[in-house]
């Protein structure tokens, strides 16, 4: 036999549950535009029934929990793709800046190479002409400064990227610290039997941000998470975060350390991976190629220059007119033997145009040596290629690197957009849905309230049933 009081309690549970459910809707609507927010769904369950005699009576409804709707697999895919996107974003930004040095403009290296060899061909038409000789020196100066400018730009870019490495490591440390703290709060909330939906949302959002900076692997451990880089460097374990640090290496650039281990080469994706790729691979490779051209030209030109005679008939090689040793008269200051820094240091060794060795026999009007010097422009003096061929190869490499990275970037953007769409279709807040839910909860609430009114009336009837009417 049930009691009116029990019915009242059941009706009340309905009121409370619907009110709680409405809370979830309210929170969803409030967070409709919060990044990373996963919509919440109230979990309503029937309360345990009571059995009295042969009757089993329901005891109403319980708001068991409020659950956040998310798809962990989708989230981990998003984190993966975010890493690629972060890497490509920083790589593309760096390379686009790099390639402006190789656009064909009036002062670019390709033009300077052509102009230099042209000036020598012109000198050959009148080898004693001082203004033509001056023209060769000017063209040589322009060539050297074209190399200097690009080499310096690349060095400066590496320095800027190096600063970025430090900044990015700082950001990573800040995020891992926050994630470790959230790990603590989440496990505390869940150990106390509660749900930690919004905290988990916040943590997921932070992991997304971290993924755009560095490659992250997420390993769920109990109700916390362990984060490592893809290569296994620990970032966060439970409530503890492991800070990365930077240390200058032998070339003065910052390497990334975890504790006392240099982890620089293991970081391959995320913004940090992209920056390191540009700083340690792409740009150094270009610098190396530039050095090769600069050293190739300088050495070959010097070789011919020191094999002739200047305008005054003096030999320019290592032996003077009397057969005594002398300092050879170079056209370009000899590049470093290893070639490194050849482009940055390229400079013209002489200021006196009469010192150019146009003559091969000491006769002022002889142009054989100038012809030999001019011919270098078409000879394989740079790694088996002519200077111009080799340089055009560099331009291709730069353009290709940018174009490939850009293609990968846009593929990654599209992929991420699709994944975000999917996540949003699972976890996003739909205002229509929330409005419908609101009506539903509101109506159920109103109904429960009506039931209470009815029970109240019945109570009244019961109380007054025994009262004698006078």
């Amino acid at each position: 036999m049930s009691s009116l009081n029990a019915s009242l309690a059941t009706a009340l549970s309905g009121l409370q549950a619907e009110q709680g459910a409405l809370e979830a809707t309210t929170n969803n609507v409030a967070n409709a535009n919060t990044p990373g927010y996963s919509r919440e769904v109230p979990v309503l369950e029937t309360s345990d029934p009571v059995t009295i005699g042969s009757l089993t009576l329901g005891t109403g409804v319980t708001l068991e929990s409020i659950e956040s709707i998310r798809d962990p697999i989708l989230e981990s895919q998003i984190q993966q793709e975010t890493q690629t996107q972060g890497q490509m974003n920083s790589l593309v930004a760096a390379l686009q800046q790099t390639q402006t040095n190789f656009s064909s403009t009036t002062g670019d290296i390709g033009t300077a190479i052509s102009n230099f060899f042209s000036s020598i061909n012109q000198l050959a038409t009148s080898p004693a002409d001082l203004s033509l000789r001056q023209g060769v020196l000017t063209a040589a100066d322009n060539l050297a400064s074209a190399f200097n400018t690009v080499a310096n730009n690349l060095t400066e870019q590496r320095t800027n990227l190096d600063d970025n490495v430090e900044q990015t490591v700082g950001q990573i440390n800040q995020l891992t610290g926050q994630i470790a703290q959230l790990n603590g709060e989440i496990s505390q909330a869940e150990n106390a039997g509660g749900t930690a939906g919004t905290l988990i949302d916040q943590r997921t959002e932070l992991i997304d941000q971290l993924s755009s900076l560095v490659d992250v692997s997420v390993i769920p451990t109990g109700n916390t998470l362990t984060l490592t880089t893809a290569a296994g460097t620990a970032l966060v374990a439970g409530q503890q975060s492991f800070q990365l640090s930077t240390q200058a290496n032998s070339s003065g650039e910052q390497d990334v350390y975890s504790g006392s281990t240099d982890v620089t080469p293991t970081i391959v994706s995320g913004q940090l991976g992209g920056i390191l790729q540009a700083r340690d691979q792409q740009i150094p490779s270009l610098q190396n190629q530039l050095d090769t051209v600069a050293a190739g030209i300088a050495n070959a030109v010097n070789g011919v220059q020191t094999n002739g005679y200047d305008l005054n008939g003096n030999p320019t090689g290592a032996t003077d007119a009397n057969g005594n040793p002398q300092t050879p008269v170079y056209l370009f200051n000899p590049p470093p033997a290893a070639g490194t820094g050849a482009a940055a240091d390229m400079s013209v060794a002489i200021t006196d145009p009469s010192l150019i060795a146009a003559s091969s026999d000491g006769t002022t009007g002889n142009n054989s040596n100038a012809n030999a010097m001019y011919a270098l422009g078409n000879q394989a003096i740079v790694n088996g290629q002519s200077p111009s061929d080799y340089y055009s190869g560099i331009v291709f490499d730069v353009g290709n690197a940018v174009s490939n990275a850009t293609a990968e970037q846009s593929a990654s953007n599209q992929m991420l957009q699709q994944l975000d769409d999917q996540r949003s279709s699972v976890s996003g807040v739909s205002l229509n849905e929330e409005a419908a839910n609101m009506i539903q909860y509101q109506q159920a609430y109103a109904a429960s309230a009506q039931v209470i009114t009815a029970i109240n009336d019945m109570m009244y009837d019961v109380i007054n049933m025994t009262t004698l009417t006078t």
Partner: protein
Amino acid sequence: MRVNPNPLPDLLSALEQAQQQINTDEQQVASGQSVNVPSDNPANAAMLVENANQTATADQYLRSLGSIQGEMQNADSALNSVVTILQRAISLGTEGANGTNNDSDRQAIASELQGIQSQLVSLANLSYQGNYVFAGTATQTAPFVLDSDSPSGVDYVGNSDSNQIAVGDNLNVQTNLPGSELFSNPSNNVFQAIQDLITSLQNGTNIASAVSELSSAYDYINTQRVFYGNAIDQLNTQQTYLNSETTQLAQQQTNLGGTNLPQAITNLESSETADQATLETISQTEQNNLFSYLSR
């Protein structure tokens, strides 16, 4: 099925892409260049470097060719004068060989020949833009100097070398004949021949053989002169070739890196249409949701 309730980020990124495409298209139309940075087309960018180098080289060949063309034309016309003068000398010699002449006639002819000798020296010392053309490679000194001790009366102080100039990737042309070969060749020394004729006329002996010596020197110079004529022809041919090469290179450059304007403008228009369509879509995006209908 539940759909993505918030399509705006997608639409915004589509809008961004459309506008980026417009920027690219506008840049191509405005600059007239489809390859503004190497990544626009790496292969073409590399070929454009080669093209620019070939163009600069061809332009330089044309400049160098122009410089030596002037020098060689001057040399050729100097030799033309030499030939004319030698014809005059031969006819003077033939006239002097005529037995009807007396001593004073021959002296008069001899002194005219002396004038011719010094004209020849002056022509052989032709200088062009500061360089002596017939001095071999010793171009800074006048190659022929008068020397009364010398049997021919003229000494050659130049050398017997010649210069070459590249006027094509595989084309070097010789730019000069040394005076020692043209005028003072041991077997055909024109100064010696005239000097001998003068001496013969003065002595009144061996005039006929001196005239024949001069004739053979004349023939020799006439033969040598062909060098300049041929070289000038070769330069003219090369000039024509280089001019057509630069035209081709310019055409190639346009093909590699120029904007195909009709195509680019069509692209720009279609990008703008895409942009417009995306904007429309965004503005038409469902403004209302169920909440809008609940308000009483």
